[in-house]
């Protein structure tokens, strides 16, 4: 079985639910464009989401068909993307991460500032910080794509776009042009990639 890259996204309930789902879709859709096998989905146990609750969204990328498709959770995330920086304080966001993982955080703060809140940072090979909220505002909340529904809003309009750009730069898993191709806010993706500061650890 080929290695499956696990991407876990942390977001806030309701206010970031759709953008979180969009980010997982951008990761999966762009990798799909690159000819990878992919999947993107909501954490079923985190739903129904409540305003403010920490939520997980997932994506998987593989060179071969994904055999573990029906497992609820990414138990060993290689990449963790945090859409709201305060989540790093309350959650063990790196839980299960194999050594050498990548962390991407949406924050105005510095990487060093954020690392203070991450006691198991030795698992990381890098931390990338981008002020995604400064690049693209959150878009309106819309529930129509939740609970297995088809997304009505265009995918990647809000903060998911710059974060996907930053993730492309931080991980090398996704080609930037592929992310740009699948995102609604193409400028946002590019700006995110540009603005992202990658710090090797």
């Amino acid at each position, binding site marked *: 079985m080929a290695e499956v890259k696990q991407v876990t996204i942390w977001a806030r309930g309701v206010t970031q639910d759709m953008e979180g789902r969009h980010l997982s879709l951008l990761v999966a859709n762009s990798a799909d464009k690159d000819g990878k096998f992919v999947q993107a989905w909501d954490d079923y146990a985190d739903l129904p989401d*409540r*305003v403010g609750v920490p939520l997980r969204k997932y994506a998987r990328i593989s060179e071969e068909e994904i055999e573990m498709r029906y497992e609820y959770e990414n138990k060993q995330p290689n990449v963790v993307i945090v859409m709201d920086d305060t989540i790093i304080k309350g959650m063990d966001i790196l839980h299960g991460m194999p050594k050498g993982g990548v962390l991407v955080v949406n924050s105005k703060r510095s990487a060093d500032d954020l690392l203070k809140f991450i006691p198991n940072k030795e698992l990381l090979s890098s931390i990338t910080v981008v002020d995604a909220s400064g690049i693209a505002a959150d878009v309106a909340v819309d*529930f129509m794509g939740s*609970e297995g529904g088809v997304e*009505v809003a265009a995918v990647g309009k809000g903060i998911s776009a710059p974060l996907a750009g930053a993730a492309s730069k931080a991980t090398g898993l996704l080609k930037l042009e592929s992310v740009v191709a699948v995102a609604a806010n193409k400028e946002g993706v590019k700006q995110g990639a540009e603005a992202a500061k990658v710090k090797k650890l």
Partner: protein
Amino acid sequence: MANPVKTQNLEHIKGIRKVPQEEYYVPGHRTCQGCGPALVYKLVSKATGPNSIFLGPTGCMYVANTSYLCSPWAYPWMHTQITNGGAVASGIEAAYQVLIRKGKYKGELPNIVVMAGDGGSIDIGLQAMSGMLYRGHDALFIMYDNESYANTGIQTSPATPYGANTTFTPPGKKIPEGKVLFPKDPPQMVIGSHPAVHYVATASVAYPVDLINKVRKALNYKGPAFLHLHAPCPKGWLFDAKKTVEIAKLAIQTGMWVNYEWEKGEYTYQHTPKEYKPVKEYMKLQKRFDHLTDAHIAKMQAFIDAKLKAPGKPIAVPVQGPREMA
């Protein structure tokens, strides 16, 4: 010789300082930031005190409060199906009547409270609610109204206002206003045909002392009572979590919600503004109404104007049903 069934007498309070500091709906539940129904639960629990049994039909206040295998209720609580809150409460009340009569339970009759959402009250739970109220059980049926099936991701219920965007009434080209129907009037349904009920009231999280006193008054009646409690829902109505109480107040100031009591046939009204603000002021703070045109809002205003002529009483409202409009 049968033992008499002793009931509790709960004190009327004068102000916020007299509200018990003790919490019986304790911190630690997975309800939204700024959750109106959670605030209702807290206030009702303060009103009842610990000598109570609460029934929780399926809904937000079941799922969010017990996820997973934990509980925020310091008094006995039981899950019921969304369908049968009133019926399970009836069984519990009947059990206490006979257990006390037979001397098997020594205490006073506990306050038996059903905390049902709008779906568990006036939609799928209507039959059980009506049955409990009709049969005269000494129990309180509370409908905490957050105006949708919120737990499953905001679907329309008979309490959802006209024009609301829910995931089952999305606005579209053919149906621009989203929800087409106007809501049921829950207290009127109860008042209209339940001879055993002597007390029905509405209350809002905007006026907590009033809410607490109404819960206590309802429980002091030996027999069934019904409360309709307004509980703004930041997720379903799409407003900033900090505005829950503000929105609740605005509902009263615009006439979208009216606080009143119906006691043995007499109506009294509380918190009536000198002059009602236009409903638009209330609606514009909630993204669920974002898609509405001025014509839609005028229709809502006409509905509210008609209702405000005699809140809680049957009145012809100038609203056409979907078949009439077609």
